[in-house]
């Protein structure tokens, strides 16, 4: 055990967790530098670092690094963090490693909101689409909560209600897609797979603001989250206000997922995989939020690098590549669980 102190804030952490966290941070930094320097035109590491912090390195380099690569990579990192934390909270709350916002309707709701906006308002600006996505996600989660509320929330019932509502939202999305003209429909489909291409500093700021507001609330409730993993009764006996804590955490998880979807479209599998890998690396008994965030950032940034490295005829959105990483893991997870292991 070790206690990290930054001013009045303190986080207790295990030595291994701390070491793993530092390693992931280092890997993230290395990957970020690589992402700045490599691409269609290669720059020296020193130049790309200068470009990232705003020191001029000559006109094309300034633009490539400062306006294209840096915001794209930072968006990937921040969205990865949001997804990682959102998934970690949800998996801990539902005590189910298969739960993630992509599967229980939240991302589908965000997708439906965005596609409806695309159809009704048009693709005027990314911000309008994003607002539609957030509204869709919030509405969907409210609907899921109402449907699964019977004298409190039972997590498993929430997952199933979420799956059902997810299909309702997909029906709405498909209806909108059949009614649009084919070019818009192509755009909508592209948005639905998730991509970080062409993101600007405004997107980075939006993500940073959301994380800055929501992360302190989440971290404040980490203790309650860990305690609730032992069961509601035990948590109550230990003085946790279960319903209030669960509500707050679930709201944070939904907002983080909705924010991520709003900025990049629903990028699948990160929220599912990142917390699980973080858990295995740190060998923690319970939920590990900060390693999950770092893992999410690493996975998304790495997937985006793979996506960019593909030949020009195969330029696909990053969501396809995260699916390629996440799917085998998921298959293994379900297969292992069906062998009689823990769910």
């Amino acid at each position, binding site marked *: 055990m070790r206690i990290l102190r930054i001013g009045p804030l303190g986080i207790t952490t295990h030595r291994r967790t701390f070491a793993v966290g530092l390693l992931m941070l280092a890997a993230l930094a290395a990957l970020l530098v690589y992402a700045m320097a490599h691409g269609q035109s290669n720059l020296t590491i020193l130049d790309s670092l200068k470009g990232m912090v705003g020191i001029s390195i000559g006109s094309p380099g300034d633009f490539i690094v400062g306006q294209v690569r840096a915001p794209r990579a930072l968006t990937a990192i921040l969205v990865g963090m949001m997804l990682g934390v959102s998934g970690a909270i949800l998996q801990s709350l539902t005590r*189910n490693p*298969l*739960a993630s916002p*992509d*599967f229980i309707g939240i991302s589908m709701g965000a997708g439906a909101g965005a596609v409806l906006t695309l159809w009704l308002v048009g693709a005027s600006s990314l911000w309008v689409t994003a607002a539609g996505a957030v509204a869709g996600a919030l509405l969907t989660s409210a609907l*899921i909560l109402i*449907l*699964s509320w*019977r004298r409190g929330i*039972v997590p*498993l*019932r929430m*997952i*199933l*209600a979420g*799956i*059902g*509502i*997810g*299909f*309702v*939202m*997909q*029906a*709405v999305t*498909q*209806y909108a*897609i*059949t*009614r649009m003209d*084919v070019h818009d*429909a*192509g755009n909508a*489909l*592209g948005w*639905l*797979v998730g991509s970080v291409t062409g993101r600007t500093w405004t997107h980075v700021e939006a993500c940073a603001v959301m994380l800055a507001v929501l992360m302190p609330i989440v971290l404040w409730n980490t203790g309650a989250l860990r305690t609730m993993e032992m069961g509601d009764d035990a948590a109550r006996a230990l003085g946790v206000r279960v319903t209030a804590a669960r509500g707050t955490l679930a709201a944070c998880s939904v907002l983080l997922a909705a924010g991520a979807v709003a900025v990049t479209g629903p990028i*699948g599998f990160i929220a*599912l995989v990142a917390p699980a890998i973080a858990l295995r690396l740190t060998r923690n008994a319970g939920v590990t939020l900060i390693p999950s965030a770092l893992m999410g950032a690493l996975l998304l940034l790495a997937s985006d690098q793979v996506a960019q490295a593909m030949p020009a*005829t*195969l330029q*696909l*959105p990053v*969501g*396809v590549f995260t*699916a390629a990483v*996440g*799917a085998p893991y*998921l*298959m293994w997870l*379900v*297969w292992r*669980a*069906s*062998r*009689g292991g823990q*769910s």
Partner: protein
Amino acid sequence: MRTRALVAIGAVAALVIAVALSLAIGARSIDLGTVWQALVDLDPSDPEQLIVSDLRVSRSVIGMLAGAALGVAGALMQSLTRNPFADPGLLGINAGASLAVVVALSTGLATGFAAQVPIAFVGAGLAAILVYAIGARGAAAGAPVRLALAGVALTSLISSITYAILMVDEATLDQYRMWVAGSLTGRDLDDVMPLIPIVLVAIAAALIASRQLEAVALGEDAARALGVNIGAIRAVVIVLVTLLAAAATAAAGPIIFVGLAVPHLARALVGASLPSLLVVSAFGGAALVLVCDVIGRVVAPPGEIGVGITTAFIGGLIFALMARRMKVVEL
């Protein structure tokens, strides 16, 4: 026995009413007398009779075919996995068929409908084997949440691959987006005709195998004691589910939740007896698809909503409400 007979008669009556609605209601409402006339003694000079015989008959036949196939496939799947949430759409089997068709469209392997059908069968079969192998075997096979999540996860994986192909290929997208919405209008009756014997044979085979499948559902030991070849019966059922789901998908696009909702309602009426359940599910599924199609024709005039969208919308709500009603232990 008497209730079962009554329920069976009720299901047939429901189907007859649904067919009548499907023939009569649409952008242009046609009274039942004219519909009858068009069926028994067609007068080609009457435009209303032509609408019935040219458009609505084929549409109703396709709807009945897909609905009956999905109802039976759902009942079989639920019995095989001992899981009330099993549904060919929910478990990714329809998505597998879709992916196979998109690959075929995009590579130019299958241009006509006749060539797409066997490809849809292959895709559905692979997805069925995959989801069954990972989600429905072993110690915890009965847990509804696990199978549902496994299916949703598999579906989201398959659809992201499908999306990826569609994004680089706009021509395929244009053909596919109509197909995927689940519509009874996009097909010629002549194209669908070869599917009818496939579905009928598969339903008959399911009825023959149903007693043995019932024994398997009692548990492996009980089945073995009754002299049932468990492996063989499971393989047969998976093949039948694949055939039925793929035929339905090929005829009407991926339709979800019919295989979930219909056997669920039927079980409440006829009890656990599998043969009766299969018969009632066949008629009930056909009736439900037709009713959903009629709803899709009238809610958004002048346009129409594809039946796959209507069933997903209604079925998703039913699914969520089912989850709400279940006791915690059952999950």
